[in-house]
C-alpha cells in the first residue's frame, strides 16, 4: 500500500515539474510552429543560475531566484529570437536547426563556466523537513512543486484567457494568417511568446533544481520529456500540457518502478500511440 502511495506522490511531483518545463515549450510550438530545441538548455541554464545564486548569497529566497533567473533566461531568449530566428522566417527547418545549435552553445557555455561536476541546488530551509504521512516520510518540497504547478497553470490560464495579449496569442495559434490580416502584430507576438516560454523554462529550472541538481546533460535529459508531454497533450494547448504532464508523470514513475528494464520504452510508447491514432494530441488545436 505504501508503495502505491509513495509512487503516486512521486508521479504528482514529477508531473508538476514536467508542466513547469513543458508549458513554455507548448506555447512556442503552438504559436510559432517551432519545436524549440533550446528549451532544455534554457531549463538547465535556470538550474545552474540557481545553484550559483543560492550557494553564494546567504538568505536568498528560491522564489525570488526563480523570478530573477526566469527574467535573465527570457532576455537571452528574446535576443536570440530577434537576432537569429527572425532572419530565418519562412524557413522552419532552418529555425529548428538553429535552436538545436543554440542548445549546444548554451550547454557548452555552462560546461565552461560551471565545470563538469554536478552542483546541488539547496532546498529552501523551511521546506527541508520531510512531511510525515500515513506512517512514512515524503520530501516536502516535492509536494510543494505540485502546488506550484497548479499556481503556474492558473496564472497562465488567466494570461491566455483573460488578457488581450492572451487573446492575441490564441488567435495566432488558431490561424496565423487571419490574425495578421486582422492587424495583430504577429512578429512582436513571436518575440513575446518566445521570451515567455524561455522565461518559464528558466524559472522551472530553478524550481526543479533541488530535485534534479545542475549537471551537464540536464538539458538533453529534460528536452525529450517536454517533447513527449506536448505531443501527448496537444500542441498549443495549456490544458493539454497540464494533463499530459501528469499522465507522463504517472506513466514514467510507475513504469520505471514496475518494469525498470523498459524505462524508455514505457515513456515513448504512449507518444507513438498518440501520433499514430490521434496526431493532434489529446487537446490539440493546431490543424495542419
Amino acid at each position: 500500500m505504501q508503495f502505491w502511495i509513495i509512487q503516486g506522490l512521486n508521479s504528482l511531483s514529477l508531473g508538476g515539474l514536467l508542466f513547469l518545463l513543458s508549458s513554455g515549450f507548448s506555447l512556442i510550438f503552438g504559436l510559432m510552429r517551432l519545436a524549440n530545441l533550446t528549451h532544455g538548455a534554457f531549463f538547465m541554464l535556470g538550474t545552474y543560475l540557481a545553484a550559483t545564486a543560492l550557494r553564494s548569497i546567504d538568505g536568498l529566497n528560491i522564489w525570488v531566484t526563480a523570478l530573477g533567473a526566469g527574467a535573465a533566461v527570457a532576455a537571452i531568449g528574446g535576443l536570440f529570437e530577434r537576432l537569429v530566428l527572425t532572419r530565418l522566417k519562412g524557413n522552419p527547418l532552418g529555425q529548428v536547426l538553429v535552436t538545436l545549435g543554440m542548445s549546444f552553445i548554451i550547454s557548452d557555455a555552462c560546461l565552461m563556466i560551471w565545470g563538469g561536476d554536478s552542483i546541488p541546488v539547496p532546498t529552501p530551509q523551511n521546506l527541508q523537513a520531510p512531511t510525515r504521512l500515513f506512517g512514512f516520510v515524503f520530501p516536502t518540497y516535492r509536494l510543494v512543486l505540485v502546488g506550484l504547478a497548479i499556481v503556474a497553470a492558473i496564472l497562465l490560464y488567466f494570461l491566455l484567457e483573460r488578457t488581450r495579449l492572451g487573446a492575441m496569442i490564441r488567435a495566432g495559434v488558431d490561424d496565423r494568417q487571419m490574425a495578421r490580416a486582422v492587424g495583430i502584430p504577429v512578429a512582436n507576438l513571436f518575440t513575446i511568446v518566445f521570451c515567455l516560454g524561455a522565461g518559464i523554462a528558466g524559472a522551472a529550472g530553478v524550481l526543479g533544481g533541488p530535485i534534479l541538481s545542475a549537471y551537464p546533460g540536464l538539458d538533453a535529459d529534460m528536452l525529450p520529456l517536454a517533447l513527449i508531454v506536448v505531443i501527448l497533450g496537444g500542441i498549443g494547448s495549456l490544458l493539454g500540457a497540464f494533463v499530459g504532464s501528469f499522465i507522463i508523470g504517472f506513466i514514467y514513475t510507475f513504469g520505471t518502478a514496475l518494469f525498470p528494464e523498459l524505462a524508455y520504452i514505457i515513456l515513448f510508447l504512449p507518444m507513438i500511440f498518440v501520433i499514430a491514432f490521434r496526431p493532434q494530441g489529446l487537446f490539440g488545436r493546431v490543424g495542419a
Partner: protein
Amino acid sequence: MTISRRQFVNGIAGAGVASLAAPNIVFAQGSEPIRIGLLAAKTGPLASGGIDMDLALTMFLKERNNTLAGRKAELIVADTAGVPATARTKAQELIEKDKVHCLIGPLAAFEALAIADYITEKEMPTLGVAAAEDMTQRHPSPWFVRATSTSAQSAYPLADYALKELKYKKIVTIADDFAYGHEMCAGFQRAFEDGGGKIVQKIFTPLATPDYGSYVAQVKPADAIFLGTAGSNGFRFLRQFIEYGLKDKMAVIGGMTALDESVLRNMGDEALGILTTSWYSAELDNPLNRAFAPAFRKQAKYDPGFYAASTYVSGAVLEAALKTTKGNVEDKKALVAAIRGSNADTVRGVVKFDEFGNVIGNVYIRKVSKTDGRLVNSVIKTYPDVSQFWTYDKAAFLKNPVYSRDYPPAKNLEP
C-alpha cells in the same frame, strides 16, 4: 680527383636512400623527445574527469622537468569528448600524425573498446584507465595494461569488509544501467554471497535519470545499500535517498567512483560516515602521496581523486619502465615488456601487473570524514595485493561468462 656529374648525382642519391632506409643513423637515439599521448575527455559530460587526468599528468612531467629516465618527454593531449568515434579518431591522430611512443587513457570503457583493436594492430603500448573487465580477461591485448582497477576488482574487498567487519547480511545494490555498473555489482554480489550474505535487490537506473524519486521509493529494507554508480549520479541519488528518510534506516556503502573526491567536494555533512572502496584516496599516507596530494590541491583547489590519480600512477609506471629500458622507446616490444614487468612505487602503493596486463595492487576501504573543514575519504583498512580475480581460481573465472546484468545470477532477490 674530379668527380664526374654522374658520380656526384649517384653519390647524393645513394646517401639519400641510405638515410631514408636507416633513419636511426640520421637521428641519434635519445635526441628526440619521448612523445606521450593522453586520450582524455576534456569536453562533454565526462569532462571533469578528463580535466583532472590532464592536470595530474602535466604536473607529473613538470615535477620531473619534463625528463623521464634522462630523456626529454613531451605530452600531447587529445580531447575525446567522451565519444567512442572521436576517441578512435584522436588515437589515430596521436599515433600516425604525432607519432607518439605510448598512450595513456582513455577513461570510459566504450572509448577503450573503440580503440582496442587499433592499438593492438599498431602495436602501441597503452596504459589504459577504463575499467572494462574483458580488456584484461577474455580479450586481452599484449599492448594494453591497466594500472587502475577493473570494474569489480575494488568491489570485492568491500564485500569482504561488509561481511566480516560490518556484519551485514542483506544488501541492496543500485548502479547505472551499463556495463560498468553491471560488472561492479556482479563482482560485489559474487563475493558477498559467497561469504554468506544475500543481495536482496539489484536496481539499475538508466544513465540519464534526472529524477531518482521513483527508484528511491522502490528500495527494499536491508542492512545497507551499495552504490555502484559513476560520476555525479551517485551523489544525486544519495540526496534523494536522504530526503526520503532512508539514510536513517539503512547504511550506505559505495564502489570506487560513487563518492570520489570530485563528487565529495560538492557534498555536505550528509556524506559523513559513508564507506567506499577504491585503489586510491587523497588521504593515503605514503611518502609519494604526501607530496602529490597537497601539490595537486594547491594547483586545482580540490583534492585529487580517481581521475587525477589514474594518470599520475600511469606516469609513474611509465617512468619505471623507461628506467629499465634506459630511455629507449623505439623498441616497442622492450617497452611494453618493461611496463608489464615493472614494480613501480606510486601514490597508490606498489603497482605490478598480472599476465593479462591488469594491476595487482592495494585496495583501500575509506570512510568519509572531515579534515580542515573539508570532506575527505579517510583510509580505514588496506587490502594488499588485490588482483582482478580476487580469491577465485583464474582458469575457472575465465571459463565463466563476463560479468553482466544477469551473471552471476542473483538467487536471493526478494519479490
